[in-house]
């Protein structure tokens, strides 16, 4: 019975989403209630499942041979599914307010809700084919969200998004084929499934394939040569940028790489090879690159998007350390970054929504007019920088700890990159904060008389995120213990 629930949490939001444009809602309010109910019910179901995990797997579809679409909830899946379903109801609440002024709301919420199902599908995939399947599906259901505003910019952005994502999947596909052919099983097994006894060819080739697949999945996680889609996709409404392009979609990429590295190829095989050094160098470069671009960028949301690029590579850096501790660091940052970035994006969204300003230089003096929003933004900025006491420090600490313990010289360089990125983060985040709270001498507050804090619907999720950041920052131990168990294959 419980196994069927795995299917339900994936299909329920998907189906409920499809129904949105078909149902005759009396007015906007009813639609909101419907959607929020769906999302909350689904989240409750997911959390119930997390606490009574079914051991078995549920097979939905069978393709040729041993290829099938199967769901299974293991430790890693729990973390991602838990994260997604915790954030989704809040983000949905926020988007009700945000989308008030936008058109085609029904279509928007249809895809928005469907995405929840697809993301949970990625999380609960039991084998690489299922994951690939949902991965492609994710691209498809999120493209309309990028396209939403239908401006020329949005069209171009959605095209870029599609090309990059599908292209990345094409390379990830190669890796998948190898796992299918040379794996002892197609299911995810902690420690890898590669059956080297069966493989007669060149080991370097296998490593090359790993690098290709890493880059392929890395496209969604915005690693360096393939990251330009992410800032462009910032034209989407803020709930999309915040939830999808800072959490669900991009973290799916990172999640897929975790699966690929720890559950398919196996760290035993990869550790110490040139493949590890290659992918680690890429992530290190991306960490610095993303931050530098963020410093240059003057559009608020795009700046945050560049920051996301850099932070995603923190996660990937943790993954490429290829020790259980590295995975712990990566998972910690996955959770922490999700909370921090969604919070800062929502603040940016609140500014855009209430005032229509979207460039950094337009924010002079906003701190006094929107004290709550900018107070929260400041906290998220501190968290992103890694100020102790907030969650950013915890994840950075864990990543660095893993890097030090691995005794890998390149990983030491990675720590350096993390810290350079931290100082750059300080630059690009604090300049905003300072502008807002300390405008130039003689600033005329009358010029921003129209600026004010948004209502509780927007502020509630924001405050909850702040609480989350502080709790994660001060008492992360239970979570880290969980991650340690997952990363050691015990959970």
């Amino acid at each position: 019975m419980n196994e069927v629930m795995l299917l339900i949490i994936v299909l329920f939001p998907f189906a409920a989403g499809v129904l949105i444009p078909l149902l005759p809602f009396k007015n906007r309010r009813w639609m909101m209630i419907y959607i929020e109910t769906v999302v909350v019910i689904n989240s409750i179901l997911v959390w119930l499942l997390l606490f009574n995990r079914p051991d078995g797997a549920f097979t939905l579809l069978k393709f040729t041979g041993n290829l099938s679409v199967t769901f299974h909830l293991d430790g890693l899946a729990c973390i991602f599914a838990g994260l997604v379903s915790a954030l989704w109801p809040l983000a949905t609440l926020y988007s009700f307010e945000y989308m008030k002024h936008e058109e085609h709301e029904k279509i928007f919420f249809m895809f928005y809700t469907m995405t929840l199902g697809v993301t949970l599908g990625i999380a609960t995939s039991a084998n690489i084919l299922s994951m690939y399947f949902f991965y492609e599906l994710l691209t498809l259901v999120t493209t309309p969200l990028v396209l939403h505003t239908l401006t020329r910019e949005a069209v171009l952005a959605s095209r870029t998004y599609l090309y990059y994502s599908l292209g990345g999947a094409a390379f990830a596909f190669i890796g998948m084929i190898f796992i299918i052919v040379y794996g002892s099983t197609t299911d995810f097994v902690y420690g890898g499934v590669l059956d080297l006894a069966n493989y007669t060819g060149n080991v370097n080739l296998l490593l090359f394939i790993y690098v290709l697949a890493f880059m392929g999945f890395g496209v969604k996680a915005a690693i360096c040569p393939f990251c330009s889609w992410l800032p462009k996709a910032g034209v989407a409404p803020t709930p999309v940028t915040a939830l999808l392009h800072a959490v669900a979609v991009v973290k799916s990429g990172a999640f897929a790489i975790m699966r690929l590295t720890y559950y398919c190829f196996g760290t035993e095989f990869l550790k110490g090879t040139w493949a590890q050094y290659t992918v680690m160098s890429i992530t290190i470069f991306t960490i610095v690159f993303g931050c530098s671009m963020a410093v240059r960028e003057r559009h608020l949301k795009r700046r945050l998007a560049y920051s996301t690029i850099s932070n995603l590579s923190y996660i990937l850096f943790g993954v490429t350390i290829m020790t259980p501790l590295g995975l712990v660091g990566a998972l910690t940052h996955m959770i922490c970054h999700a909370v921090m970035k969604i919070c800062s994006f929502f603040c940016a969204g609140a500014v855009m929504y209430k005032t229509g300003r979207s460039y950094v230089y337009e924010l002079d003096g906003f701190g006094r007019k929107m004290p709550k929003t900018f107070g929260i933004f400041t906290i998220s900025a501190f968290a992103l920088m890694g100020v102790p006491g907030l969650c950013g420090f915890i994840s950075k600490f864990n990543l660095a700890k893993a890097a030090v313990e691995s005794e890998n010289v390149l990983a030491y360089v990675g720590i350096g990159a993390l810290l350079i990125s931290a100082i750059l983060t300080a630059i690009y985040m604090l300049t905003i904060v300072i502008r807002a709270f300390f405008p130039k001498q003689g600033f005329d507050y009358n010029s921003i008389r129209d600026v004010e804090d948004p209502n509780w619907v927007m502020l509630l999720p924001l405050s909850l995120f702040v609480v989350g950041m502080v709790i994660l920052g001060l008492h992360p131990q239970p979570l880290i213990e969980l991650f340690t168990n997952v990363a050691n294959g015990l959970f």
Partner: protein
Amino acid sequence: MEILRNFPCFSLILSMCASIISSALNGKWARRLNIFVISAIGVMSACTLYFTFVTNQCYIYKMGRFSAPWGNEIRFGNLEAAMALFFSVIMLLSILGGRKHLFVEVDPFKENLYYVLINLLMSSLLALIYTNDLFTAYVFVEINTISACGLIMIRENGHTLEAATRYMLMSLIGSGLLLFGLCILYDITGHLLMSNIKEQVLILAQTGQYHIPLVVAIIFMGVGLAIKSALFPFHSWLPDSYGYSTASSAAILSSLVSKGYIFLLIKIFYRVIGFEVIAESRLFNVLFVFGLCGMIFGSLSAIRENDIRRMIAFSSVAQIGYIYMGFGLGTEAGMIASIFHIFSHAATKSMLFIAAVGLTDASGKSKKFIDLTGAGYRNVIAGATFTVGSLSMVGVPLFSGFISKILFAQASVSVGVSKMLPTLIVLAISTILNAIYFMKTVVRIYTPVKSDYPSISWKQDVSYAVVCICFIICNVLLGMCSEPIVDLIRSGLAMFA
């Protein structure tokens, strides 16, 4: 049960007769007859498939019970029957889908002629599928060429005339080469019946006699059929003839005619020369290289194209490249992948052509992308069909294209590195290129604009909508229930030997 054995022969004769009768009928009746005939062929092929599948063996049907060299033989196993069934289904859907355009684009007095050609084409395709005689195959190749030419030309404007001439020219070169090869083969073996030739070739290969003539024959036949099926770089005739002919023709030509030749080539590989001998001749390597080039250059040309029909046509070049690449791998797995891709591509490409017609109809008959903006909203069903087709082409899971991609990739992994790496990388690049031009189109047709063109609801043309839905179902079926189909192909190939 036993009567089922006669069905292949019946269907062949039925379609030939129908073409003769059609010439005497008016357009309306010719159409009805044609639809009936094709449906009947479909049903008969299904029965045949059922028969071979249950008995799990192949049959040789001697016409009039005369044995060679006087008589003519038909041979059918799982694969042949499946192919015939599939061809008739696609043919039926293509004709129904493009029906409305026929009335407009074809001179009403010539409408029955169109159905004559269609029936002729069907019979030649069936013959290519079923025949066990190399010379008969050649004859029907020519018939096929002529009827295809007619299908292109029937729209009667400057473009189609030019395209048809070009097609004719290239095709004749192709069939000329095929004929040369066939003559040489006859010369050195003394047989025209496939199974007999194979025995002789095997002996020749073992003794090493006539080595060079044998290789030359193989190359002639291979290249000839490659030209006819528009393998890169022999594809110059293709975009015009698919792009400007009437919708049904384009759908049929792209999905069936070239596939008929390819199927004949497979038969030559397996039934005439023998797989091992071919493999030794290195023809596979040549095909492999050209296949890869086709995959890339076809897509590149498609990206540059500004005309939706021609874009789809160029995409065919790429897809045919996939098929030849599969041959080029030189393994059974590669062959299975190629044959699956024949199915997959035939289903998808005809679907795209039919969907494109719906979109252009909703955009004032213009095929230019700029006019197609927002067409997906004006003709919902066509838009949806086009989207599904595109996704399948890009290789998104759930649709048929994904399965063929996965089969190709799996096949390539088990061959040597020198072929595996190029295959995988070109496969990935080609996927990206496909994504670029198909997704660009999809995004465009869903970009709303204020447009003067009227919307077309599905109620205005129910049969079109039904055809579209059938196409979608067909595609999803291929994508989701691929396992029995792959098994079928495997058993069919086993029966070839």
